[in-house]
């Protein structure tokens, strides 16, 4: 049971074994945070907020066949002030939207929302031509668990409650629940680590800054080296070009000379084999090519 916000760290931390086995059966050694999360997840009190057909399935889940009370969620509170989780069961219409938001505002932190049923997830069957429907209750309240289905079976609602329990453990809130009205802390700060937004092995701000400086220096170094190499390459290319031009110019000059020397040689009418069997003009030696680094 790992969570994406804390990779590599299990959501449930078993208590460390420090005492002998007999004693361990009576003593539990753990973190306070774990204990509070365990209390919270084992006594989720839902707000009885049934809007439409999904409410009937919610009632069925609380009944004897599927028995939601095994998860501690039997007590459906009528008032939002005493409830932990708001299971929005049923279609939310524009007329009802303000009331949903008001009920959510009246709940005290920590609070969670389960969007039960296709209508609350994204509009459901009414997503296209429903003019009075809010297409997804996450336009009004922040949702923690999305539960699709029309209506979802009671087993599916139980799975949603179980995932919510995992979520409670994974986020590990000590005092404050997730309140979307707050501005998220800056990346790498201690508050961000506490909220579970930053990696598990935290640095302080200073250490993070030093690391950033170092990284920046290394990047600059690399950029500089790259620029030098590019410069060198450009110089080599220019030199090569100049050398080629020179060679071409010399060739041309040699040709012209040969062209001038030809009539002179014909006038002489000497055996023309010697100049013909002369060694071919070697091209000038190329300068050694430096490969760019």
């Amino acid at each position, binding site marked *: 049971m790992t969570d994406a916000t804390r990779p590599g760290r299990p959501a449930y931390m078993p208590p460390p074994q420090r005492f002998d086995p007999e004693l361990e059966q009576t003593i539990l050694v753990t973190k306070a945070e774990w204990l509070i999360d365990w209390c919270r997840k084992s006594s989720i009190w839902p707000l009885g907020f049934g809007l439409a057909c999904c409410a009937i399935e919610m009632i069925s889940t609380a009944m004897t066949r599927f028995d939601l009370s095994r998860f501690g969620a039997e007590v459906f509170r009528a008032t939002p002030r005493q409830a932990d989780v708001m299971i929005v069961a049923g279609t939310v219409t*524009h*007329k009802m*939207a303000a009331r949903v938001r008001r009920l959510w505002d009246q709940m005290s932190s920590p609070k969670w929302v389960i969007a039960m049923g296709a209508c609350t997830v994204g509009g459901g069957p009414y997503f296209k031509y429903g*003019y*009075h429907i809010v*297409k997804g209750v996450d336009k009004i309240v922040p949702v923690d668990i999305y539960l699709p289905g029309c209506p979802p079976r009671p087993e599916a609602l139980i799975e949603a409650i179980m995932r919510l329990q995992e979520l409670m453990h994974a986020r590990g809130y000590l005092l404050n629940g997730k309140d979307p009205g707050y501005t998220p802390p800056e990346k790498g700060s201690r508050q961000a680590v506490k909220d579970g937004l930053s990696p598990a092995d935290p640095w302080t701000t200073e250490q993070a800054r030093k690391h950033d400086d170092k990284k920046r220096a290394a990047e600059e170094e690399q950029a500089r080296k790259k620029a030098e190499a590019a410069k060198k390459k450009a110089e080599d290319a220019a030199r090569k070009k100049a050398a080629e031009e020179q060679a071409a110019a010399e060739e041309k000059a040699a040709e012209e000379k040969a062209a001038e020397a030809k009539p002179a040689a014909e006038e002489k009418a000497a055996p023309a084999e010697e100049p013909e069997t002369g060694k071919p003009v070697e091209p000038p030696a190329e300068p050694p090519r430096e490969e760019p680094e």
Partner: protein
Amino acid sequence: MSERWPPAAALEEALPDAVEEVSEEGPHKFVRVRADQIVKAARILRESCGVDMLHQVSGVDYEDRFEVVYHFARVKSDPGFVCLKVSVPRDNPVVPTLAHDWATANWGERETWDLVGIRFEGHPHPYRIMLPEDWEGHPLRKDYEFPTDYHGIDCTE
């Protein structure tokens, strides 16, 4: 059927100039009456045709007109339904209300006003019932444009 349909006969006898059309073919028989005579027509049905209950008030949007369709029910004697239709022009859809005689019409006409946009004159509480008070438009009209925004909530997707 050699006999005339009793409600049609009763209405034609009592209000001859109010009856515009009688249709007795098919499974659905109806009598179309003039809009201003609907209250009297309903009373005649109650008195002489044994009608006990107004079952349903509907509004229909046709290309050239609106129609209000009333279905009355006989409960205590000879169970059955009687249908009255009223046509009103599209630019001025006003029909006198039945809410003072038939309590069913109180909410039925409010719903017709809300969704189709037909006004009922003399209604004691002529406000929207299904949609919020500040909703614009009447959804069940054929030329209704679906809204894109309502108080900041995006309505499209």
